[in-house]
């Protein structure tokens, strides 16, 4: 009993000193609520939007996990420094890493889609040929900003928690666009019929790619 109280007291006191973990957790909880909200929309949601929302929330969190792992491996062996010593442009490093992250995300998504079709009893419609395109566009929006932020986050003390806090607010437009485009596909129409949603996705991708291409070298500087 004594030991229990002592350990409990120590843990609480340690956390109260900095309040870092609690703050991060609270902000993360808020973010999760927001992401769910934007994906699902308010009021009643039809089955297709629901399925699309669940998919993209899943991809968001799986993607964040993957980004964390891939960058922290690099850091762990300090091999990032070895790479930086090579005569390679930092933007080339960015493109390669972002592409790798994109490929990993796509691989997971392609596996998840059939599972979702089964679990949600989705109708197999011809418009589903558009799915890979929307998956690509959505994941690209993640991979670019995600690579930059993951490089930063894994260089800090917070490691795993910091990445979602940085990344998710920025990704909200991508999630909104991707969910709408996917939902439109599931109802049998091409995603370009999702109105501004599809254009939003494309615009985000272009802008994020350009900005991250330039800013990566500052994130990776030793």
């Amino acid at each position, binding site marked *: 009993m004594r030991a229990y109280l002592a350990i409990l007291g120590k843990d609480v006191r340690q956390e109260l000193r900095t309040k870092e973990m609690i703050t991060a957790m609270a902000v993360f909880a808020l973010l999760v609520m927001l992401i769910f909200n934007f994906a699902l929309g308010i009021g009643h949601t039809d089955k297709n939007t629901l399925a699309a929302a669940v998919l993209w929330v899943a991809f968001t969190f799986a993607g964040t996990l993957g980004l964390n792992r891939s960058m922290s491996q690099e850091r762990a*062996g*300090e*091999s990032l*420094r*070895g*790479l*930086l*010593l*090579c*005569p*390679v*442009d930092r933007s080339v490093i960015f493109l390669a890493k972002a592409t790798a992250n994109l490929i990993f995300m796509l691989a997971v998504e392609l596996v998840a889609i059939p599972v979702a079709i089964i679990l949600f009893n989705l109708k197999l419609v011809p418009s589903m040929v558009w799915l890979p395109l929307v998956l690509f566009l959505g994941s690209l929006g993640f991979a670019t900003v995600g690579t930059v932020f993951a490089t930063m986050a894994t260089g800090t003390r917070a490691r795993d928690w910091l990445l979602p806090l940085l990344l998710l607010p920025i990704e909200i437009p991508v999630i909104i666009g991707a969910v709408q485009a996917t939902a439109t596909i599931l109802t049998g129409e091409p995603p370009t019929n999702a109105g501004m949603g599809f254009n939003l996705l494309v615009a985000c991708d272009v802008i994020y790619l350009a900005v991250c291409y330039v800013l990566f070298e500052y994130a990776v*500087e*030793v």
Partner: protein
Amino acid sequence: MISVRGLKKVYGAIPALENLDLEIPTGQFVALFGPNGAGKTTLVNILSTLLLPTDGTVAIGGFDLKRQANDIRKLLGVISHYPWLYSRLSAKENLMFYGRMYGIGSLEEQVDRRLSDVGMDSWADETVDRFSRGMQQRLAIARTLLHDPPVLLLDEPYTGLDRHAAKMLTNSLAALRSEKRTILLVTHDLSQGLAQAHRAMILRSGRIVEDSQVDELDFDEFTAKYDSIIGG
């Protein structure tokens, strides 16, 4: 070969390097000593293009550090106490990767040659996470020499090495010295540094406080000076 003028690096108000002037001609082997926090690692980091100076100019092989960093990187080989190897890849895969980053011709041939030079050819296909520290450092040496760099920067490379690996490193350095490469060795080991170098320097609080040719200095006098600086 290495030309440093007015080099300054500050972290906030803390100066890590202060108005450093340094000329290292081609083929010279410099041993750099100094207490912890003197700025030795900062200097090596700046010379290896990983860190930007606050002020001053640095030129290596005639290339300017700020504007021609990639050209400098082609000339540099850096060995530190971190091996900078990918632990899930094999020894050979590691070297092949770095070789491609440096754009080395007839790569496989070169890789095999370097591996046997450091005695790692029998482990070529083993993954690095299986290697001891000494073996990793040997592989790191192979990786560093792959692109035949005329300039070598070594930041306390003997750290954590067993005697066998340390001997290997010393032999490699002797060979590099005879090949007239420009070498900067940062080390805590006075006798080892002085045994190999042409020139000895002591850095303290960001300034060079001692700079002499090794064959001209009095060993005991230098040791005494070194001890007094380190002892604080």
